[in-house]
C-alpha cells in the first residue's frame, strides 16, 4: 500500500505543508475543509517516510493498538476522534463519487450532443461533405471516430468511382451507407455509455481500497498521536525563509498565547523573543545552508515559556529536483536532564577539586609531620649531643690546665680542636635546619657596620696562625648606624673571613663595604615580607643597599667548582676537604642567611689569585638623633679624642707580626694580636706598643694602663652597643680594665694562663654587677660556685618579678635569666625589661601585675637608653627555644646544665 502511495506521488511538494499542518488541527478537530486534504494519498516524501516508519512499527503494533486505544483514556478520545474522521471521510468519498458521476454524466451529455451534431453534420454532409473534418477536430472521441469514418469514406469513394456518379442509385447507396454508419455510431455510443457505467461502478468499488488506506493512515496517525500526546516535543516544517508552514507543539502555553495562524508563515524571531531564539534561527539557517542534518542543544529564555532547554534536530528538506525547500525540525525539551547533567558535572568537578585538595592537604600534613618530627629530632639531638660533647670539650679544656708533657698536650690539642669541630658541625646543622624549616627569625637591631667589620677582623686576627694581613675598608658613604640582624650578619662575615683565611697562605684577607644603588635582583621582586618585617624595614623609612666584599689572595676556586660551592656538604674538591677540613656547611649557611634577609651572595674567583665573596643586603638607615646619648658621646669624643673617631673610621689593618707564640715558645699571655672583644680603638698601634712591652711575657698591668690611658672614651663608646656603661670617665676606665681582664682570660689557646694572677687582678678591679635569676636552689648553688671560680659575684633573684625589682633598684652589667620560673617567667620578664628600656618607665610591668616602687627618675632616664645584656639559661627543649629567647629580647642563651666553660665564654662576650 505504501508503495502504491509512493508511486502515486505526483503531487507537487507544496502539498506537504497542507497535509502536515493538519496534524495538530486534527487534534483540535477544526475546519472540515482542510480535512479534505488529509485523505489525499499523495504527500510529501518526508511525511511519507515518517508514515512508513510508523507503518513498520504499526505492523507489529496493530494488534496492540486497539487494546491500547480501548484501555486508555487517551485511546478512547482518540477513537472518538477517529470516528469523527471516518465520518468526514465517508462524506467526502460520497461527495467525490458524486462529483465523478457528475462529470461522467456531463460527458455523456456532451457525447449525446455531439452525436446529434454529427447526425446533423452528416445530414449536411450529403450536401457539403467537406465540412466534416472541421467539426471532427473538436473532440478526441470524434476524431478517432471520424478517421475511421474517413477511411471508410475513402474506400467507398473508390468503389463509388467505378459507378456512376450522378445517379439516384449512387445517392441511394450513399444514404444507405450513412444510415449504416449512424447505426454503428449509435452502437459505439451505447457501448461507451455502458463502459462509462462500468467505470462508474468500478469507481464506487474503488472506495474500498481508499478506505483501507485511509484507515491505515488513521491508525498510524492515531498511533503517533497516542505516543506523542504528552511527549515534550515540538515538530515543525519551515520553508527556505524559515517561515513556519507546519508546527506541532505540545506545549499549551504556546497554543494559548499564539494562535496557529499567528505562527504559520512566520519565523521564530517574529514569534518569540528572548534568549536562544536567535541562536536556534541561526542554527536552522546553518543546517539549511550546509544541507546536513544536525543536532544542537539550545536554551531558550522567552516570555512565553520561560527558561527551557531544547535538544533540537534539524534536517534539510529537498524536492524532487533536489532543491532545498526548507527544513524539518524537531525539538525535545531536556531542561531537567540538562540541569541534572550540569549538576552532575558540577558535582564531579567539585569532587575532583576536593580530591585534589585532599591529596594536597595530606601531602602538606605529611610534610608538616615530617618537618615536625625532624625538628623534634634535631632539638633532641642538639640537646642530647651538645651537652655530652661540650662536657667532653670542657673537660679537655680543664685537662689542658693541668700539668702535661709535650706529647700529652699535643694529643689534647687535637682532641679539643676535633671536639670544637664537631660542636661547630652540630651548630651549623642546627642553623641550617632552622633556616630551612623557617624557624629562623631575624632581629632588627641598630648596629655600626664599621664596628662589626672591625670586631670580625679582630676576632679572626686573634686566632690567626698565618702571616696574613687582615684589612677592613669601609666607604665614607656607608651610614654609621644601620638596622639589621647584626648577629646573623656577623655570623656571615665571620664565616666568610675564616673561610678566606683557611684558603689563603700569604697576602691579604679583607672586608670592603660600600653603598650601591638598588641591585637588579631586587627589582620587581620585592623583599620578602618576612624579611622586610624582620629587618624592620618599612617603605617610608630610608634604606640603603650595602655591598660587602670579602676578598682574599688565596688559592682561588676553579670555575667548574663554583656552581656547587654553596651546596651543603660540598667543597671545591675532595682533596680540598682532606687538606683544609671543615664541615662544608659554612657557605651554604651564609647563602641561606643572606637570602633570608632578602639579599644575594655571589662569588668571583681566579685560581691562584684569590676569591671574592660578595653579599648585597638592604639595611634601614638608623638616625642617631633618637639616641641623645650617642650624640653626647660623639661630641665628647671630639673634645677629648685627638685620634680619628672610631665610629667613622673607614680603614683597619691587622698586620702579621714576626714570632708568634707558636714559634718562640715563650709565655703566651700577651697574645700577638688583640684578642677578640678587647675593645681597643687603634689596634695596629696598640698591638705594636703592647708587643714591645710584653716581651717579658706578662704585661697585663702595663697594657691596662696603655689601654685606658690612650682611649678611655672610645672604649666606652664601644660598650654602648652592647651593654650598659657606667657613664662617667672613671667608670669607663674600670670597664676597660674589666675588658683587659677578659683579655687575659681569653682564648683556649693560651693554656698556661695563670689563673691566680687573673684572680688577683680581678680583686683589684671593679667588679661588674651580675644578676642571676633562677628559682632552683641547686642551680643557684652550682652557678654561684662557678662564678666564684671565675672571679665574679652576683645577686640572686628567684623569679621574674624579683628580677625586675632588682633591676629597678640598681644597675647591672649582665643578667643571667632562667626561662622557666614560677610567678613570672624569664621571657616575660625580659620583655618587660626591654619595654622599660625603650619607654623609660615600668608601665608595662605594672600592667602585667608587677609591683614596682617608684624610683629616682634621673638615673633611670639615662640608664633606660642602654641595653642591658640578658642571657637566657634554657633547658633547650622545644618550648624554650633559642628563637623564642631572641624574640623576647634576650641577647644570647646558655643551654643548661650550665658549665664553667659556657659561663666563661658568655661572660667574656658580654663583660668587656
Amino acid at each position: 500500500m505504501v508503495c502504491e502511495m509512493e508511486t502515486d506521488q505526483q503531487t507537487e511538494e507544496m502539498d506537504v505543508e497542507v497535509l502536515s499542518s493538519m496534524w495538530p488541527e486534527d487534534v483540535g478537530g477544526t475546519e472540515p475543509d482542510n480535512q479534505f486534504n488529509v485523505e489525499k494519498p499523495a504527500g510529501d516524501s518526508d511525511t511519507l517516510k515518517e508514515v512508513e516508519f510508523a507503518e513498520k512499527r504499526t505492523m507489529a503494533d496493530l494488534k496492540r493498538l486497539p487494546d491500547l486505544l480501548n484501555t486508555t483514556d487517551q485511546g478512547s478520545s482518540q477513537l472518538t476522534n477517529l470516528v469523527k474522521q471516518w465520518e468526514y471521510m465517508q462524506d467526502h468519498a460520497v461527495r467525490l463519487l458524486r462529483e465523478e458521476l457528475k462529470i461522467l454524466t456531463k460527458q455523456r451529455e456532451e457525447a449525446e450532443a455531439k452525436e446529434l451534431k454529427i447526425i446533423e453534420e452528416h445530414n449536411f454532409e450529403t450536401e457539403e461533405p467537406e465540412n466534416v473534418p472541421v467539426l471532427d477536430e473538436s473532440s478526441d472521441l470524434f476524431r478517432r471516430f471520424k478517421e475511421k469514418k474517413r477511411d471508410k469514406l475513402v474506400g467507398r469513394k473508390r468503389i463509388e468511382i467505378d459507378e456512376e456518379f450522378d445517379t439516384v442509385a449512387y445517392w441511394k447507396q450513399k444514404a444507405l451507407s450513412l444510415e449504416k454508419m449512424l447505426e454503428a455510431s449509435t452502437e459505439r455510443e451505447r457501448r461507451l455509455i455502458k463502459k462509462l457505467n462500468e467505470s462508474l461502478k468500478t469507481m464506487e468499488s474503488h472506495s474500498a481500497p481508499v478506505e483501507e488506506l485511509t484507515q491505515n493512515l488513521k491508525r498510524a496517525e492515531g498511533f503517533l498521536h497516542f505516543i506523542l500526546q504528552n511527549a515534550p516535543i515540538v515538530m515543525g516544517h519551515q520553508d527556505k525563509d524559515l517561515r513556519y508552514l507546519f508546527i506541532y507543539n505540545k506545549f499549551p502555553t504556546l497554543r494559548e498565547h499564539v494562535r496557529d495562524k499567528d505562527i504559520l508563515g512566520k519565523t521564530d524571531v517574529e514569534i518569540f523573543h528572548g534568549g536562544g531564539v536567535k541562536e536556534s534561527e541561526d542554527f536552522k539557517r546553518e543546517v539549511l545552508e550546509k544541507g546536513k542534518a544536525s543536532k544542537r542543544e539550545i536554551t531558550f529564555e522567552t516570555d512565553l515559556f520561560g527558561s527551557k532547554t531544547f535538544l533540537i534536530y534539524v534536517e534539510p528538506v529537498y524536492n524532487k529536483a533536489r532543491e532545498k525547500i526548507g527544513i524539518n525540525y524537531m525539538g525535545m525539551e531536556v531542561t531537567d536532564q540538562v540541569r541534572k547533567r550540569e549538576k552532575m558535572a558540577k558535582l564531579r568537578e567539585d569532587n575532583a577539586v576536593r580530591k585534589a585538595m585532599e591529596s594536597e592537604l595530606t601531602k602538606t600534613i605529611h610534610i608538616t609531620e615530617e618537618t615536625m618530627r625532624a625538628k623534634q629530632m634535631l632539638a633532641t639531638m642538639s640537646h642530647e649531643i651538645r651537652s655530652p660533647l661540650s662536657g667532653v670539650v670542657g673537660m679537655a679544656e680543664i685537662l689542658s690546665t693541668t700539668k702535661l708533657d709535650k706529647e700529652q698536650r699535643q694529643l689534647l690539642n687535637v682532641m679539643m680542636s676535633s671536639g670544637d669541630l664537631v660542636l661547630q658541625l652540630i651548630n651549623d646543622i642546627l642553623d641550617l635546619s632552622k633556616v630551612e624549616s623557617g624557624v629562623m627569625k631575624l632581629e632588627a637591631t641598630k648596629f655600626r657596620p664599621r664596628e662589626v667589620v672591625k670586631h670580625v677582623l679582630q676576632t679572626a686576627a686573634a686566632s690567626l696562625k698565618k702571616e696574613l694581613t687582615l684589612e677592613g675598608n669601609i666607604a665614607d658613604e656607608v651610614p654609621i648606624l644601620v638596622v639589621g640582624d647584626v648577629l646573623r650578619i656577623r655570623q656571615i662575615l665571620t664565616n666568610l673571613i675564616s673561610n678566606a683565611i683557611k684558603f689563603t697562605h700569604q697576602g691579604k684577607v679583607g672586608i670592603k663595604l660600600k653603598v650601591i644603588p638598588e641591585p637588579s635582583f631586587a627589582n620587581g621582586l620585592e623583599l620578602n615580607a618576612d624579611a622586610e618585617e624582620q629587618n624592620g624595614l618599612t617603605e617610608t623609612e630610608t634604606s640603603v643597599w650595602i655591598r660587602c666584599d670579602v676578598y682574599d689572595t688565596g688559592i682561588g676556586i676553579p670555575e667548574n667548582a663554583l656552581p656547587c660551592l654553596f651546596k651543603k656538604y660540598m667543597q671545591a674538591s675532595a682533596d680540598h676537604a682532606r687538606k683544609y677540613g671543615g664541615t662544608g656547611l659554612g657557605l651554604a649557611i651564609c647563602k641561606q642567611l643572606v637570602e633570608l634577609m632578602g639579599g644575594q651572595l655571589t662569588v668571583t674567583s681566579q685560581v691562584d689569585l684569590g676569591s671574592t665573596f660578595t653579599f648585597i643586603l638592604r639595611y634601614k638607615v638608623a638616625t642617631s638623633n633618637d639616641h641623645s646619648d650617642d650624640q653626647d658621646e660623639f661630641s665628647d669624643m671630639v673634645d677629648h679624642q685627638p685620634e680619628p673617631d672610631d665610629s667613622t673610621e673607614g680603614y683597619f689593618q691587622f698586620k702579621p707580626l714576626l714570632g708568634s707564640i707558636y714559634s718562640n715558645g715563650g709565655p703566651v699571655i700577651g697574645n700577638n694580636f688583640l684578642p677578640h672583644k678587647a675593645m681597643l680603638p687603634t689596634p695596629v698601634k696598640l698591638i705594636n706598643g703592647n708587643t714591645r712591652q710584653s716581651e717579658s711575657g706578662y704585661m697585663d698591668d702595663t697594657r691596662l694602663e696603655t689601654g685606658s690611658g690612650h682611649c678611655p672614651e672610645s672604649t666606652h663608646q664601644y660598650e654602648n652597643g652592647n651593654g650598659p656603661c657606667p657613664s662617667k670617665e672613671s667608670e669607663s676606665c674600670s670597664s676597660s680594665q674589666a675588658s683587659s681582664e677578659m683579655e687575659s682570660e681569653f682564648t683556649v689557646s693560651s693554656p698556661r694562663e695563670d689563673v691566680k694572677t687573673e684572680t688577683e687582678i680581678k680583686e683589684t678591679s671593679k667588679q661588674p654587677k651580675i644578676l642571676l635569676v633562677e628559682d632552683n636552689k641547686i642551680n643557684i648553688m652550682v652557678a654561684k660556685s662557678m662564678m666564684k671560680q671565675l672571679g665574679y659575684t652576683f645577686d640572686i633573684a628567684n623569679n621574674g618579678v624579683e628580677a625586675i625589682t632588682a633591676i629597678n633598684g640598681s644597675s647591672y652589667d649582665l643578667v643571667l635569666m632562667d626561662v622557666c620560673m614560677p610567678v613570672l617567667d624569664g621571657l616575660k620578664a625580659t620583655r618587660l625589661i626591654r619595654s622599660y628600656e625603650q619607654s623609660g618607665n615600668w608601665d608595662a610591668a605594672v600592667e602585667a601585675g608587677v609591683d614596682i616602687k617608684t624610683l629616682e627618675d634621673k638615673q633611670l632616664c639615662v640608664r633606660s637608653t642602654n641595653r642591658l645584656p640578658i642571657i637566657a639559661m634554657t633547658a633547650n627543649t622545644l618550648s624554650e627555644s633559642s628563637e623564642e629567647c631572641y624574640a623576647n629580647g634576650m641577647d644570647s642563651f646558655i643551654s643548661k646544665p650550665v658549665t664553667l666553660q659556657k659561663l666563661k665564654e658568655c661572660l667574656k662576650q658580654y663583660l668587656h
Partner: protein
Amino acid sequence: MELVQMQKSLQDYTKSLFLDNLKVEESVLGVIQKLEFMGVLDSQFLQLQQLQDESNPHFVSQVVTLFFQDSDRILNDLSLSLDQQVVDFKKVYPHVHQLKGSSSSIGAQRVKNACVVFRSFCEQQNVEGCHRCLQQVKKEYYLVKNRLETLFKLEQQIVASGGMIPAMELGF
C-alpha cells in the same frame, strides 16, 4: 682498710658511676643509642667536683645534700598530687620541672631523663603515664642517692683516716 687502697677504690667507684656514658661513639646515632646505657652520672658532676677547692671543700656534698633534701620533698609532693582523685597537672608540672633542673645540675642524668619523659606525660595529662614515670624517677633517684651516699662515705673514711681525697683523674 688501708688508705691507699681506699683512695683507689674511691676512684674506681667514682669512675664506675660514669661508666656507660664514657664510651662515646663517634656517630651521632651512636650517641643516641648510648643514652640507653648511660651511667648514673654525667660530666656535670665533674663540673661540681671541679668547683670544689680549698675555699669550698665540701661543695659537692653540700650541693648533693641540698639536692637530696629538695628531691625528697618533691617526690613526696608528687606522690601526693598523683594520688589525688583529680590530678592537678598545674601542680605536678612545676615539681617535675624543678626536679629535672636540679638533677641536670648535679649530673644525675638518669633522673633527669626520666623527668623529661615524666614532663611530657604531664603535658599530655596522662595520669597513668605519670604514675609510671614517678616510679621510674624514684627508682633512678634512689639509685643515684644510694651511689652518691656510698661515694661520700668512702670520701669521709679517707678523710677520717687523715688522707686526701684524690683529685679526679679526668682522662678516662
